[in-house]
Every structure is written in C-alpha cells, then in structure tokens.
C-alpha cells in the first residue's frame, strides 16, 4: 500500500514506508546522494504530514527491509514486546510525538521494549531540535562495569588518547593530561593506528597498567575489530570492553566483518572474564549515519532510519557505551554544521528512547562546512539533552584519526555550565587524589613516572 498527502494543491504519493520515511527526513546530503530525499520543501512537509497520520502499529506490519533478507529486521521484529507497546498502540506517529512530549521518565523507560527503531526514527522526523532535547532529557539509562554511567546530574567523558604510531609514551602522556582534566570516567579508549594483534595486546597491557597504578575506577578499551579482541582474550589479555562499529543492516555489518552471532560470541567471551566490579555491561559500539550507503547496503532506506536500526543491534548486547560518531563520515553524508547538529540530536534521542547509554562523538572533518562554534552549539544542546558521555581528545585535535572532536576542556566547560558531575565512583577518586584542587601550580597528584613517563 502507498501513502499520499496534498500540499499547496499538489498531491504527493509515497509508494511504501521506506520512501515515506526518506522523503519526510529533514534535508541532508547523504539522502540526496542516495537519490532518496524529497525534491522540494513542500514534498518533504507532505511526507511529514502523511507520516504524522500513520498509525504507529503500521510499523509492525511493513518492514523497511524484508524479514527474509535481513537479520537486523528479524532481530527487531522477533524482539518486539506487544505488552510494552500497548500504551501507545492506539496512536498515530503524530499522536506519539505529543505523547512523548508529555511523558514521565517511568513511562518512557517502560515503553522501550515495545518500540522498534523505525518508530523512533519516524517520530524524530517530525520533531524539532527542542523536542529531541526535551524528550531525551527524560530518558534515564544507566549502565555499569567498574563505575556507574548515566545517573541524573552526571556527565561522563571517554578519554581518547590516540597516537599516530601507537607509541606507548604518547598514549600515556595523553591519558595523564586527560585524567588531570577530569576525563576518563566513561572509558579510557584508544583507537589503534593499525588493527594488528601485537599492537592491540601492547596497548591493552598499557591501559590496564595505567588503570591499576592509579587505581582508577574506570574501564579501558582498545577499539580494535571484534575478531582481534577475541584473539586477544584467547591470549589472556586484560580486555574490559569489547568494541565494534555496527550498522543497521545485515549488509553493512557484513562490510564491517561482523554478524549478530559473532557479536554474541565476543560478548560471552568478555563476560567470562568477569572483570566488571559493579556491573557486567561489557560492550562498546560506535555507529554513524551514512555507513550503510557507503557500504552500498542501504536497501533504499534513508540514513537516519538505518542509524536507528543499528541501535536495535546494540541493545541486544547490553552495552556499557554506545556513541554515534556524527561528523566523522564527511560532507557527502552530513554537509555542514546544521546537518551535523540535527543528526547528533536525532541519534542521541533515538538511542536514549530505545534504552541505550548514548554518547555522541561531537566532531567534524576539515572538508565539512563546520567549525568549533558548531561543535560548541551541538555539545551544549547534547548536555541539556542529558547525553551520557562525550569524547575527550587533547586540544580537540585527534592526531591519529585526523579529525576534530571535543577536548578535555570542553568536558570541563559542559560540566560547569550545566552543573554536572563525573560518574560517582570516579568523582570520589578525583577527590581522593586531589585532582581538581591541583589544577594550579605545584606537585602533580598523579606521578608521571608511575606510567613510564619518567
């Protein structure tokens, strides 16, 4: 069946759900590149009106990618909880937006298993930025490994100490800089320059030693491919979190070299290590709009709907951390600061609504029409929206990945501006070590020599 709506004397037709969702999506370059975007502003609003009139339960009857063709679709529909869906089952997408804007945290939390990612994506397409912020701020999601992330009034930082050649002293220096500026409670997580087992083992040992020497209540991660982490665990390496990039279709996951079965195997291996002290959430996923089109595995779906489907993959594995790397992919998918800002807030909203401990890598590349002012605006909006964590990179300049993310200073700014604290266990550790008190001159509260920086 198709959908139709008239605007300005023209009747616009949308042959199926995925086309309706694509045409209703606020403008972004990736959907134009894919040939899926609305051709005019009026066609877009016609699609948004048709989408608003659509009964929410229609999403259970029409898959955007067929059940037979795609294991992510099967996961979404097989896991759907009809009882949890009941409170909104009678609503249209437009009625659901109104319901969300008035919903209390407990009702939002109870709804999670009843929502599909396509429902979350659909309603986000008829929401303004303030709607995305307001609803996400009432979605409470906590996750635990060696500390507790996502509590109200908290904001955590991933310390990202990347080095162009995986030099252990370079990584250690960036870690110390970050710790002294209050970063690292989400995770101390390194992107290795090469996905090589020996490098991964060396970095895992380094991160574990730093954590141990300073007795930091946090977790570490080397963001290698899941198969590399599996090999590292076989070798007895200290793996806290297993990382993987994921997407919203079976095909894009295949292009990343993963499947649901492989992710399950990796999670079970990490669980068996029993390294968490206050919880067992041991997976870390990264996502980003546009990855499926880039892998030619988008099945005619818009990039934001597919991004939301990646969150169905993530929530299957009870992750400690999930973040969209929103501006990394480049201007052919998100052209400028405006598109990056909207996408970052959509991703955070959809992730939180579906129950994920959602962070965002607020970032851009040098060929995108964006700058530090755009990042400040998105960072501040995400803080108001209750983002679980953001990145901390020395001086916002990732010297390995050659893109700009948020800095340790940005984390300090956001916590101060919004009155947010680090994760409670980490906050207590910072106080014990005298880190904030030592921000002036004098003796360092963390001795560099302890981590090989003599």
């Amino acid at each position, binding site marked *: 069946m198709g959908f139709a709506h008239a605007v300005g004397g023209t009747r616009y037709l949308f042959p199926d759900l995925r086309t309706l969702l694509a045409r209703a999506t606020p403008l972004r*370059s990736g959907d134009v590149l894919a040939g899926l975007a609305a051709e005019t502003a009026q066609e877009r609003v016609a699609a948004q009106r048709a989408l608003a009139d659509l009964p929410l339960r229609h999403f259970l009857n029409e898959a955007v990618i067929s059940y037979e063709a795609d294991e992510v679709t099967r996961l979404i529909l097989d896991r759907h909880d009809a009882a949890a869906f009941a409170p909104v089952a009678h609503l249209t997408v437009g009625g659901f937006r109104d319901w969300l804007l008035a919903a209390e945290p407990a009702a939002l939390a109870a709804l999670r298993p009843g929502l599909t990612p396509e429902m979350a994506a659909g309603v986000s397409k008829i929401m303004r930025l303030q709607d995305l912020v307001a609803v996400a701020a009432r979605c409470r999601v906590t996750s635990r490994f060696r500390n507790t992330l996502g509590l109200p009034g908290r904001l955590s930082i991933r310390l990202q100490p990347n080095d162009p050649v995986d030099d252990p002293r370079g990584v250690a220096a960036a870690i110390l800089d970050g710790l002294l500026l209050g970063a690292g409670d989400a995770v101390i997580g390194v992107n290795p320059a090469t996905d090589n087992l020996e490098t991964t083992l060396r970095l895992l040992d380094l991160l574990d030693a730093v954590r141990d020497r300073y007795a930091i209540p946090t977790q570490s991660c080397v963001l290698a491919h899941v198969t590399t982490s599996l090999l590292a665990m076989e070798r007895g390496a200290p793996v806290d979190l297993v990382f993987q990039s994921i997407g919203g279709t079976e095909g894009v996951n295949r292009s990343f070299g993963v499947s649901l079965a492989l992710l399950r195997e990796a999670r079970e291996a990490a669980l068996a290590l029993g390294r968490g002290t206050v919880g067992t959430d041991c997976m870390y996923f990264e996502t980003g709009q546009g990855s499926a089109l880039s892998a030619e595995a988008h099945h005619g779906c818009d990039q934001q709907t597919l991004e939301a489907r990646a969150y169905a993959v993530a929530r299957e594995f009870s992750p400690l951390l999930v973040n969209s790397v929103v501006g990394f992919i480049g201007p052919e998918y998100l052209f400028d600061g405006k598109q990056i800002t909207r996408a970052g807030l959509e991703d955070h909203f959809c992730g939180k609504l579906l129950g994920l401990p959602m962070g965002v890598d607020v970032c851009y*590349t040098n060929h995108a029409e964006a700058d530090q002012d755009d990042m400040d605006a998105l960072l501040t909006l995400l803080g108001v929206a209750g983002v679980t964590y953001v990145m901390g990179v020395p001086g916002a300049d990732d*010297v390995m990945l050659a*893109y700009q993310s948020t800095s340790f200073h940005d984390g300090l700014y956001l916590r101060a501006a919004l009155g947010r604290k680090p994760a409670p266990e980490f906050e207590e550790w910072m106080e014990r070590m005298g880190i904030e008190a030592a921000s002036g001159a004098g003796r360092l509260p963390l001795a560099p020599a302890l981590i090989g920086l003599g």
Partner: protein
Amino acid sequence: MSVPVPWAELRRFTSARVALGRAGHGLPTAAHLDFQEAHARARDAVHSALDLDALEAALGQPAIRVASQAADRRTYLLRPDLGRRLRQADRARLPPTPGAFLFVLADGLCAIGVQQQAPALIAAARPLLEAAGLALASIVIASQARVALGDEIGEAMGAAMVAVLIGERPGLSATDSLGLYLTLGPKRGRTDAERNCISNIRPGGLAPEAAAEKLLWLAGAARRLGATGVALKDEQPNAPRLAP
C-alpha cells in the same frame, strides 16, 4: 587569567595538544588561536586548486589535462560519484598506450599535496620503473578528481597499471600530504579493495625516494601476482625511511 601548566613536560612525549593550560575551564587565548590558525590552514587547503602550468614545469614535461564531471569544489564535496567519472569531452584527449604504466596526478581533497610532492616522487620513480622494463605513458593531470577516476583514464588508454597520486585530506598538523593508489588492470568498477596505498608522502612523513622504492616493489609484486589490493600484502623488506 590563565595559570601555568604543572605538567608541561608531557609535551615531549607526544605531538598531541597536551598540557595546554587553562583559563577557567576553557583554553588560554594562545592555545585557542593556535587551533583556529591550524583549522584555517586546513580549510583553505581543501579549496586550493592545482597550478597546472607550474606543475608541468616541475615535472619537466607536458601533461594531458583532464577533469572529472564535478564542475566545482562544492559539487566535488557533495557528489563523490561525479569525481570518479571523466568529463565526456576529455576522453578523446587520452592517447591509447596499451600495456603502459600510467601516472595520474589528482587534486583530491587538497591540491597542495600533489603540487608539492608529486614531481619529486615521479622523478625518483621514473628511472626505477624504466630500469624494471616498464614503459611509461604520458602523465595525466586530473582536476576535481577522486582516486577511482584513474580507473576510467587507465581503461581509456589501455594502461596495464595506474598509480594515482592524490592530495590527502588535510589535517590540523599537515596540509601537504600525498597519497598513492596503485591499481593493476584499471577499468571502471574497480573497488578500493583492489588497490594498494602508500600514504603520508610529505616532508616529515615518507620521503619521495622511499615512496618510489615501495612503488617499484608493489608494481613488481603486482605483475608477478596478477593483482593489486587485499591479495597483495606489503612485504617489502627494509622499513621505509622517514623524510628528514
């Protein structure tokens, strides 16, 4: 007031922007403007254009000038597919040179890299390749070009192998970096998995002479193996030297 940084000694361990100090919770003015300057340099580098006459002069020989179907920089950034296709009128300007080794110089995301590094690389590589018995085709310079444009150019000329020398995406620390992508049997539809890459060719990175030796090794291995890409592992003995 910004305060002194008690851990400034960390700077000697890394090129990352550590120990910047603090003004309140923010960056001190000098560190903030250092960043703005680096970003400004990178932004301007994205929009840099090839100086074709100067490039030909540096190469010491005339080159064939072509362009992609991306008419301007904005189109180039938004439509990578057009940057991979040859402007229709330019196809007739490509002379058939069956079986030759072809260099394509492409502006990519930053023309500075190819403008500054490509002539020295070709000067170093040409005698090595000729000594190995490879016939070199006329050099092609392509504007608003992505890597895969070399496939269509190579196919039109009947080249046995194409090396695309392309400006790499500028970072805050380097805006003059050149990448090289080698593809055996270039034709439209080749994927990135069918290429071998040599990256970070620039002062402070890989020296042109070292890149030329690596190219020679890869070209020889590609001929023996009958393939470039994931099937061809870089097992060149002796690690490449860093430029002084």
